[in-house]
C-alpha cells in the first residue's frame, strides 16, 4: 500500500511518541542509577557510580536476585514438562472436552494476576491448609508459565502435522523412540523459546507473587517494591531495575530470534 507524504509523517510521528512514552522512562531509570541525587529528582545534578557500587554490595538485593532466578528456573522447568505433555495431548489426540482443556490451559495468562493471586492464596492456605513458602510461589508461577511453553509447542506441533511421526512409526520406531528422535528435536527450539518466555514472565512477576510467597521469600520485584520508598535506597533500586530490565529482555530477544529462525526452517 502506498501512503501519501503527510500520512507517512503523521504515522511516523505517532509511532515516535508512543515508543518514546515507553522507552524514555526506562532511560530515566538508568540516569537515576548514575545520578548523584539520592531521591529520584530531575534533572540529575551530577553523575556517579556510587549506587552501582552500593548495589553490588547490597546483600538484600542479591539474595532477592538469587530467589528470583531460582523461582523462575523451577517454574519454567515445571512448565516445560507439563506444557509439552499438554501440547502433545491436545495436538495429537482427540478426546472429550478437548476445547475446554485448551481454554483452561491458556486462561491463566489472560486472568488478572490479582485474581490468580487471591485464588491461589485461598487454595493454599484455606483449602490445603499449608503455609505459604517458596514452593507455593513456584507452583503459582508455573500456572502462567505453562501457557507460553504450551502455546509454542502446540503451534509447532500443529504446523508440522503428524506426518513426520507417521513416517517414523512407519520406519519401525515405537512411540518413545519417535518422540526422542523426531518429535523432540523438532520441538526443541519452540520449547527453548517458550521456556525463555516463561522465565522472563516469572522473573518480573509481582502481583501473584505478593499473594503466594511465604514470609521471608523475597523476589527481586518484591525487594524493589519494599525498598523503593526507603530513604537512601531509591538510586540502588534504580540500579536493580536496570539489571532486571536487561535480564528480562535478553531471553525475550533470544526467544524471538529462535522462533523466527525456525518458522523459516519449517516453511522450507
Amino acid at each position, binding site marked *: 500500500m502506498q501512503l501519501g507524504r503527510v500520512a507517512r509523517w503523521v504515522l511516523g510521528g505517532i509511532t515516535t511518541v508512543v515508543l518514546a512514552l515507553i522507552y524514555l522512562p526506562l532511560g530515566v531509570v538508568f540516569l537515576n542509577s548514575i545520578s548523584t541525587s539520592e531521591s529520584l529528582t530531575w534533572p540529575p545534578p551530577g553523575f556517579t557510580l556510587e549506587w552501582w557500587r552500593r548495589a553490588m554490595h547490597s546483600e538484600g538485593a542479591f539474595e532477592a536476585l538469587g530467589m528470583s532466578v531460582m523461582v523462575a528456573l523451577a517454574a519454567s522447568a515445571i512448565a516445560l514438562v507439563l506444557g509439552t505433555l499438554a501440547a502433545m495431548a491436545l495436538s495429537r489426540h482427540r478426546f472429550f472436552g478437548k476445547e475446554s482443556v485448551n481454554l483452561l490451559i491458556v486462561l491463566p495468562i489472560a486472568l488478572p494476576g490479582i485474581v490468580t493471586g487471591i485464588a491461589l492464596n485461598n487454595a493454599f492456605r484455606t483449602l490445603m491448609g499449608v503455609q505459604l513458602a517458596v514452593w507455593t510461589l513456584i507452583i503459582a508461577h508455573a500456572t502462567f508459565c505453562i501457557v507460553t511453553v504450551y502455546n509454542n509447542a502446540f503451534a509447532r506441533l500443529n504446523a508440522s502435522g503428524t*506426518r*513426520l511421526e*507417521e*513416517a*517414523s*512409526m*512407519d*520406519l*519401525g*520406531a*515405537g512411540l518413545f*523412540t519417535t518422540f526422542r*528422535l*523426531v518429535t523432540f*528435536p*523438532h520441538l526443541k527450539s519452540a520449547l527453548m523459546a517458550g521456556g525463555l518466555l516463561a522465565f522472563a514472565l516469572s522473573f518480573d512477576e509481582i502481583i501473584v507473587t505478593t499473594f503466594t510467597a511465604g514470609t521471608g521469600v523475597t523476589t527481586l520485584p518484591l525487594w524493589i517494591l519494599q525498598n523503593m520508598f526507603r530513604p537512601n535506597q531509591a538510586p540502588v533500586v534504580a540500579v536493580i531495575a536496570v539489571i532486571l530490565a536487561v535480564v528480562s529482555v535478553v531471553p525475550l530477544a533470544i526467544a524471538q530470534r529462535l522462533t523466527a529462525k525456525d518458522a523459516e*526452517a*519449517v516453511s*522450507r
Partner: protein
Amino acid sequence: MEPAIRLRGLHKRFGDTVAVADLDLDIAAGEFFSMLGPSGSGKTTVLRVIAGFEQPTAGTVELFGKDVTALAPFARPVNTVFQDYALFPHLSVIANVEYGLRVAGVGRRERRAQAEEALASVRLAGLEDRRPHELSGGQRQRVALARAVVLRPQALLLDEPLGALDLKLREQMQVELKELQRSLGITFIFVTHDQDEALTLSDRVAVFDAGRVVQLGTPREVYDHPRNPFIASFVGSSTLLEPAIAEAFGLPAVATAVRPERVTLDAPAGGVRGTIAEVIYTGPEHRIVVDLEGLGTRITALEPNMGAAHERRRGDAVTVAIDPAGAAALESEAPAA
C-alpha cells in the same frame, strides 16, 4: 498362491462420512497395484489402513497370511513413501535413509553401508550430507524411496508419490519406479489420481469412487472396457452414447462409451453423417468434435497429426463410424454409496 495383501470387509467411517465401504481386495505378491480415483474416493484411506495409520471401523487386513489389523505401523512389514515425502528436516540425507535401520538396532557401519547402497540405487550417491531442504523435489522423492526400500519391506506403499513433480520429472520417475519394482520384486501399492500414471505403471488397477472399488482389472481391461459412465470419463476420455445413438451406429442399443481413437471419420459406407464442429490441435494429434446429423448430439474423434495438408476444417462433412470392438457397453451408473 497366497496374496501379499488381503482386505476383507474393510469399512472406514470418519464421523458421519463413509470413506471406505465394505472393501474386499486381494493383491498378489510382486504385483504393481494401483488404486486410482478422484480425491475423496477413499484410496488414500485404504493405503493408510494397510500401513496401520488408521484403524478400520470394521474388517481385517492380512499381510502375507497374517492378520495385522490390530498391529501398530511399526510392527508391519510394509513401508510407505509419503505424498509430501515426510523427510526428517533435522537429519541429513544419509541419516534419513539410515533411520529405520537405526531404530531396528543395526550397527553403525552396517547401516551406513546399506543406506549408501540404497541411495546409489536411486542415483543419489554423493548427496549423503545434505539436508532435505537443500534438495530439489525430485531428489527428495528419491530419498523417500531409498529410506523405505532400505528396510527391504515385503510391500511398498506409495501415496501419490509423483504428485508434486513437474511433468518431465514425473515421466522419468515413472520409468524408474517400474524398474525399481522389477529389481526388488516386491509388491507396490500405488495411490494416484492420475489415470495416465496408473495405466502406465500397473499390473492391475482398482478404480475407486465414493469409497468403493467400481472396477478392478488390468489397465487394458479398465481402459478398453469401462464398466460405467464414471469410469469411462475418469479413466481416459470417452464419448457417452445413449442407447438410441449407439443403435444408429449399428451397436447394441445400450448406453455405450466410445474412446475417441476408436472413432473413424471417413467410413466408406453405413456410417453416420456429420459436420465438424471443432478441431483442437494438441501437437501429436487432433481432437475433432463432430455434430452428428439428425441425432442432436456430438462425438469426439482423435486423429494423428499428419501435417498441415491433412488438417480437417470446421464445417467439413464427414461419415462417422465406430469400431465395434472399441465400444464399451456400460452398466447403469454405479449405485450411490
